[in-house]
């Protein structure tokens, strides 16, 4: 079984606006099991062949859905996420960007008390090549395989997936954890999932400046990870105190520099690439050394 998104994942969409519809089509095209969508007030109808429901609870009892992908705009996204958590879905992918930090503080607290795994916000989502995707990433750059990918960013993840595919390294699952300061699933959380995944032999970790998630993950890698890791940390050239696009990508109070993260990862035995163009090749070398 790969992680998060498997053969058993049956998902609904929360937020069938223009963006939701656009991506619903692409998720269906690559074989994702979408079983319905939730648009309050429009229950009982159908959009693009998907049954519509007023509430997540209705959708779950009618379809047996166990996952959701959320495209609801930022002012309403937290309500949607908490509705999904309260409906006991096992996976919630929150695509929405621009969610206020204090709203995410509430969601995070809710997650601590429930078994739901939330990925995001402000993320490209999750893809298990060959099985499906709950996300907005282009499918054709991915190929099934045994390398896991965890990343905070969007297009940089696509760059890395394309490099891996070109280098002949297929992916088990790719998790875009999101660029915000407060996220549902951290690098460390995703790394733990990959550690226990029978179908993942190695992991590529794409971090960036800000916070201490990469350092925490390095500690976990050193203590418990049984698989090799290749990493790149974006933002070596970023100035202090400036938010580099992502709300979470900021070197503040002297913490969160790329240099610190690289050192921590190297000390944990991770193959750290200084050039973002070398990730695919490095991953191939590591994979080849395993067999």
């Amino acid at each position, binding site marked *: 079984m790969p992680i998060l998104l498997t053969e058993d994942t049956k998902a609904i969409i929360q937020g069938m606006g223009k963006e939701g519809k*656009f991506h619903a089509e692409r998720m269906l095209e690559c074989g994702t099991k979408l079983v319905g969508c939730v648009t309050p007030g429009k229950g009982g109808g159908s959009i693009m062949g998907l049954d519509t429901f007023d509430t997540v609870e209705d959708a779950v009892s009618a379809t047996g859905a166990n996952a959701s992908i959320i495209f609801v705009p930022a002012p309403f996204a937290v309500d949607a996420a908490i509705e999904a958590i309260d409906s006991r879905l096992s996976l919630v992918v929150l695509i929405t960007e621009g969610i206020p930090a204090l709203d995410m503080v509430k969601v995070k*607290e809710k997650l601590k008390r429930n078994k739901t795994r939330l990925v995001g916000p402000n993320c490209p989502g999750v893809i298990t090549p060959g099985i499906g995707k709950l996300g907005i990433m282009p499918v054709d750059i991915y190929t099934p395989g045994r390398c896991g990918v965890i990343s905070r*960013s*969007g297009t*940089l993840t696509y760059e890395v997936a394309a490099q891996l595919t070109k280098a002949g390294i297929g992916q088990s699952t790719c998790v875009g954890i999101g660029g915000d300061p407060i996220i549902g699933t951290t690098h460390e959380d995703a790394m733990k999932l990959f550690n226990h995944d029978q179908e993942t032999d190695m992991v590529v970790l794409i971090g960036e400046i800000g916070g201490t998630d990469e350092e925490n993950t390095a500690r976990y890698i050193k203590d418990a990870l049984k698989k090799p890791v290749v990493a790149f940390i974006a933002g070596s050239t970023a100035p202090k105190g400036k938010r580099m*696009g992502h709300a979470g*990508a900021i070197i503040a109070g002297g913490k969160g520099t790329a240099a610190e993260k690289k050192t921590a990862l190297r000390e944990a035995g991770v193959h750290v690439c200084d050039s*973002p163009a070398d990730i695919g090749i490095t991953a191939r070398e590591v994979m080849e050394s395993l067999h």
Partner: protein
Amino acid sequence: MAAYVVICLKVHEYQAKEIFRKYGIPVPGGRVVTKSEDAKNAAKEIGGKVVVKAQIHAGGRGKGGGIKLAMDPDAAESVARDILGMRLVTHQTAQEGTIVKHVLVEKASDIEREIYIGMVIDRERSQIAVIASPEGGMEIETLAVNSPEKVRRTWIDPTVGLMPYQARQICFWLGLRDQAFKDGVSCLLSLYRLFTSEDATLAEINPLAITKDGQLLAIDAKINLDGDAAFRHREMADYRDLNEEDPLEAEAKDNNLSYIKLSGSVGCMVNGAGLAMATMDLIKHCGGEPANFLDVGGTASSEAVEKAFNILTSDKDVKCVLINIFGGIVRCDRVAKGVVDAVGKLELKGLPIVVRLEGTNASEGVDILNRSGLNFHTAAGFHEAAQKAVELSKGGA
């Protein structure tokens, strides 16, 4: 995904103190003025000794000469004349400093003791942390490193908020007594209410003074607000101060672009923040220096590309432009068309442009660039593109 505008919402001290008043946190009487004559009048109204404080979005103002004591209204006028219009340089400003446009004239207090109280969103714990120290007036980060025993952190469960017992615990630890203890507890509870109601990401009182007559008083006030919460706070837009922003960065922000000026010579235009940072890193890795961070957004529309070009090329240090686009949902042929349109309209006077397109319809995109009759250098690989741009930025071919 919609273009993501990063709104940095720092609030001036005088504005933060207005917000404090609204929540019942005691601050000294004062007035903000823009002319030195008005400083004199303000000092007269306030009476007695006053402090004249430069209003810029940076700490360390005192050391830089931006905070001065005045014994009477005439002195206040003269001090205000010195401060207004000065380029105040502190460890937190840009090298060239920030021009002071406002000063806060405030009643000077007789201080017995100074403490520190702050609140911040702790991203590691995903909760609000209250930070307190019996040593006010110092930089808290330095204090936390040098004397960690003097800094106390308390985390707040968001479902119940800051509890009075926690506020009491902090105030006992700070060694507050009698009236100051009661006021300290209520100050903490008010600050928490402010933090959550106003969508702050940081709120700091440094120092919080206990005056000779036992009053608690916020001598300084710092608030950062969460720009992502602007949809529920109409007043947030009013806090923006263009005087504090780099003009190019401000122009970018107004056009939904995320741009940060740096000091190098390779201008970059990239879709996505992570890839933009990685592109800067690769330029450096290839021996060059990036001139900027620029994220044209996930969609990289032709308008966005054109605007981005305008901003990039108005930086005179830019000797070469590197465009790195990873097409996903957005198709590279569309982006290429946008680039051709934008470059066609601009007079770039031989500025070399390296374009690397990858992903959806990349080869169609490259065809469009090659057939445009404009002088683009196309590169297939990420490394190759960066290397070419670095060579061109140094005058090579």
